[in-house]
């Protein structure tokens, strides 16, 4: 709103306080000197410098005569200019403040949508039967997928996509990312089952499983929905496991970077991973392959 009022206001005040050419020149001084916002200053100068030109041209003499009654003394003129300058500066900063607020708001909105709060410690068992935690994977990016080995359709599809994405990257880039499969079906997925399963998809794919509680905690941290029966529930082995399908890219410090859903193709996943790794290396330094 302010922005629309301002030029009108400026034009009107300048017209009222002729000699306007003087007013324009004085007013542009403090604003054109402000180095922080050159673009804004330029637009201001334009407002003040061009607006008064119409009445000045050809009407110069008349304007002087008219003004004589209202601003007879230099003191009045200076006071008027001072007030005008003050008002202009006040409005200028008011607009800048509003702009800054909008930028901050936009940034917050972006974080709320694009960066869910997820990730965190997990404590599981690897395919050699050794306990591992998220800390063991620091120093490289992690590409996490939660699934189960009896998954008939979606998991193989997604894990193949993951393997394709990784292999389409330059090998020096690909080795900066550790692909990890975490089973959400610990009841059926013992260490051997997970070991055989991950070997089918990628030579570097790490398979992890654990107790029901361990898996549940990991899934919760990464905001993975899954439903598989808890151990105390007595069900036959042909139960339905339902889980969300995302790959999570975590940076070398374990912080969440990106999530890739079913809607993305392997080349899109690869391109986004590459961009993330490059961006990280630019600010944090190279990752040992």
């Amino acid at each position, binding site marked *: 709103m302010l922005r629309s009022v301002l030029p009108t206001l400026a034009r009107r005040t300048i017209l009222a306080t002729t000699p306007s050419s003087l007013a324009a020149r004085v007013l542009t001084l403090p604003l054109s000197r402000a180095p922080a916002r050159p673009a804004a200053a330029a637009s201001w100068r334009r407002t003040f410098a061009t607006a008064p030109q119409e009445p000045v041209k050809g009407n110069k003499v008349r304007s002087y005569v008219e003004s004589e009654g209202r601003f007879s003394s230099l003191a009045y003129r200076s006071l008027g200019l001072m007030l005008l300058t003050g008002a202009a500066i006040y409005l200028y900063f008011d607009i800048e403040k509003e702009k800054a607020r909008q930028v901050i708001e936009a940034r917050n909105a972006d974080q709320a949508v694009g960066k869910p709060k997820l990730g965190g410690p997990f404590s599981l068992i690897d395919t050699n039967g050794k306990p591992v935690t998220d800390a063991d994977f620091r120093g490289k990016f992690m590409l996490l997928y939660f699934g189960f080995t009896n998954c008939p359709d979606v998991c193989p599809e997604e894990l193949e996509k993951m393997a394709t994405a990784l292999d389409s990257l330059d090998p020096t880039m690909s080795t900066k990312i550790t692909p990890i499969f975490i089973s959400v079906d610990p009841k059926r997925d013992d260490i051997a089952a997970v070991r055989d399963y991950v070997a089918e998809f990628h030579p570097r794919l790490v398979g992890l499983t654990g107790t029901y509680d361990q898996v549940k905690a990991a899934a919760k941290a990464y905001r993975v929905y899954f439903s598989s029966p808890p151990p105390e529930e007595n069900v036959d082995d042909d139960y339905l496991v339902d889980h*969300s399908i995302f790959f999570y890219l975590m940076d070398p410090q374990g912080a969440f970077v990106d999530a890739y859903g079913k809607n993305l193709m392997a080349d899109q996943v690869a391109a986004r991973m590459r961009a993330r790794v490059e961006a990280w290396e630019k600010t944090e330094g190279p990752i040992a392959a």
Partner: protein
Amino acid sequence: MGNTPSTPARAPAPPAPAAPTVGAKATPGQYDAEFTKQFTGYNQDGKPVGSEGQVFKPCCVCPDTKRERDECVLANGEENCAAFIERHKACLRSYGFSPK
């Protein structure tokens, strides 16, 4: 999604099923009425089948409710997505599955 204002002053329409919202409470079966029964029975393996004999797969029968649920959980955490979770289960039931 289904929130367009309907024509005014029409006879009271049957209550439209409420689309889930983040943080909404949900009771089992709340969304069942939204989904018409798709399966006609079970084959000899106990898998639900449709009217043309097709065998349904739990992974793939309800992609929309599943995607909505997964995205909600990813963005808000499972504890805030009970309605989305229930709605996907209701959809699975309409295909003859018995999700927990």
